[in-house]
């Protein structure tokens, strides 16, 4: 694990080239090329075809959510369309009974859901990484206290706590309040993983060397331990995005998330609940977008896991 990101050390090594082939022999031309760790990871990721396709689709979805409002003629507050029209040329995703344009609604819903998921990811990743790194680095009573706290948080059902908190928190219904609550509840898994990595890293020579040179604890944690744990952190972060999308839509669906007149993918499905067979476009479009986001994120996470795994060879079986 230690050399995943610290490829800088390797980059300095001179490129080794095979000696020139003596003429007359049929030895094949053989050269080696210097590659940094980053390049190796990228190459391994690119070999995971499902992950690459997923990354492309995910970026398209991001563009759809954040650039869509500038391109599409209606926005999510528009409700002057004809009621309950199936998808057609002027309303590609149809309209609902009020006359909302569903394409604009889905764009806005995807945007809100993505925004929440990304904020949750940032909060949870930063908090969980620091928490786990501190626990693993200091060990002893601090480790015990920090990790027991994680154990206890894990006994409480995530969704239920989020429901209980979000309904009461001031500004409940604002997207950032929901993101804050979900973020403050999602970091436990990542902290456990980071702690495990840090526990093994802290015994290695380069940490000893850093300490011998007089590096402070915070410098060792932030400059030496955390970057080397980046592989598992990135993989866990992608999983958090997928989990956050599912949690946010579930909460909005039962009425404890994003509130009308704003919208999210979960809220759109609440409104379509009774119309699955009569006006299926209201139900399937937002649903397909949730699945699309979660599915692509899961595949990207799988690809990253393979790419960061040092046991992986370049050849996929």
């Amino acid at each position, binding site marked *: 694990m230690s050399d995943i990101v610290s490829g800088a050390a390797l980059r300095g090594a001179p490129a080794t080239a095979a000696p020139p082939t003596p003429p007359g022999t049929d030895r094949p031309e053989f050269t080696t090329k210097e590659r940094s760790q980053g390049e190796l990871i990228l190459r391994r990721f690119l070999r995971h075809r499902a992950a690459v396709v997923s990354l492309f689709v995910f970026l398209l979805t991001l563009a759809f959510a954040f650039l869509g409002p500038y391109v599409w003629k209606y926005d999510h507050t528009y409700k002057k369309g004809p009621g309950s029209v199936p998808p057609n040329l002027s309303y590609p995703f149809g309209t609902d009974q009020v006359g909302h344009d569903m394409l604009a609604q889905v764009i806005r819903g995807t945007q809100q859901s993505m925004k929440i998921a990304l904020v949750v990811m940032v909060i949870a990743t930063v908090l969980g990484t620091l928490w786990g790194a501190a626990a693993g680095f200091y060990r002893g009573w601090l480790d015990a206290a920090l990790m*027991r706290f994680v154990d206890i948080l894990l*006994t409480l*059902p995530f969704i*239920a706590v989020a429901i209980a908190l979000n*309904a009461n928190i*001031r500004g409940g219904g604002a997207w950032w309040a929901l993101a804050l609550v979900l973020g403050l509840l999602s970091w436990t898994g990542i902290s456990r993983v980071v702690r495990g990595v840090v526990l093994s890293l802290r015994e290695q020579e380069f940490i000893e060397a850093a300490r011998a040179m007089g590096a402070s604890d915070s410098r060792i944690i932030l400059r030496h331990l955390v970057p080397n744990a980046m592989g598992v952190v990135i993989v866990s972060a992608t999983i958090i995005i*997928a989990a956050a999308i599912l949690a946010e839509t579930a909460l909005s669906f039962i009425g404890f998330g994003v509130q009308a007149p704003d919208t999210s993918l979960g809220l759109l499905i609440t409104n379509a609940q009774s119309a699955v067979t009569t006006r299926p476009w209201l*139900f399937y479009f937002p649903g397909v977008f*949730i699945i699309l986001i979660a599915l692509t994120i899961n595949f990207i996470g799988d690809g990253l896991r393979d790419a960061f795994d040092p046991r992986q060879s370049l050849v996929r079986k």
Partner: protein
Amino acid sequence: MFAYTMRRLLAAIPILFAASVIVFSLVAISGDPLEPLRLRTPPVPQQTILNQEHRLYLDRSIPERYWTWLTGFGANPGDDIGIIRGNFGPSVRASVDIGTELGDRAWVTLRLVFVAMFLAVILAIFAGVISAVKQYSKIDYSFTFFGFLALSIPTFWFAILLKSGGIYYNQATGTSTFFTIGNKSPDTASFTTWQNITDVAGHMVLPTLSLMLISYASWSRYQRGSMLEVLNSDYVRLARAKGLRNRQVMVRHALRTALIPLTTVTALDIGGIIGGAVITETVYEWRGLGKMLVESVNGRDVFSVLAWLLFAGFVVVVFNIIADLLYAVLDPRIRYE
């Protein structure tokens, strides 16, 4: 084994105690339960608010409130409060006893959770083992893709899809094959025991399918991974080398060991499944724990929310103890003294 079980049960007490502190603090700082009353127009008399504050112990500081909630000491006269005495405190709704309600609702929800977990585990083992044994075959790839897809489908969306599928089938055939609303029929007074059982089971079919999907998907991935690891290990090679029949190698040697990681994951996921049950119940309009939580939160019924969260924590802790005991059954190296 008995001594170990007792030790684990005793060790669960401080965990539940710490959980009660966290739950209480979270709920206490998250908002003012009387806010709707205070903001009401026309304003309610000051005395009414003071009375309510007194009744819900809001006139005390948070540590005092926690102490009374936990132990029952210093309770208002005539109040049933004190978790350690088995009392959950006064509900905002005057006619509701939180303990009784929790008991009724828990039975409805937990049987859904248990059945869904059980079926998900069985199917996950089945799919995971087949995937591992036939690694990189068409069937492995199909299971993998289906697993990833199922992992990405939101529970509530799938539940609505199944529900409307059930309704559609009922209408198309003119029968009532699938029950799509409620956890039992509205009028069961004239039912025999057997009819009651089939009625309840019938109402559980679609919710169980909805709830088990995500667990099945993630557990089958774990099972595939752990089975692959075991199949590539030296002791399985030895078992084959000494000429054991394939069936015996697979079941007695490989599968038994490969079940251990799944036990851990299953116990860890129980909180998530209870959360999923809240969502599933909302879709199928069950009167279970999910509805109780939603009603309590909407009604700002603080003691009810506290009781709910603490009970959920209790269930999770119990499951983790059961998982620990299962290790001993599965792994001969672990013998608890």
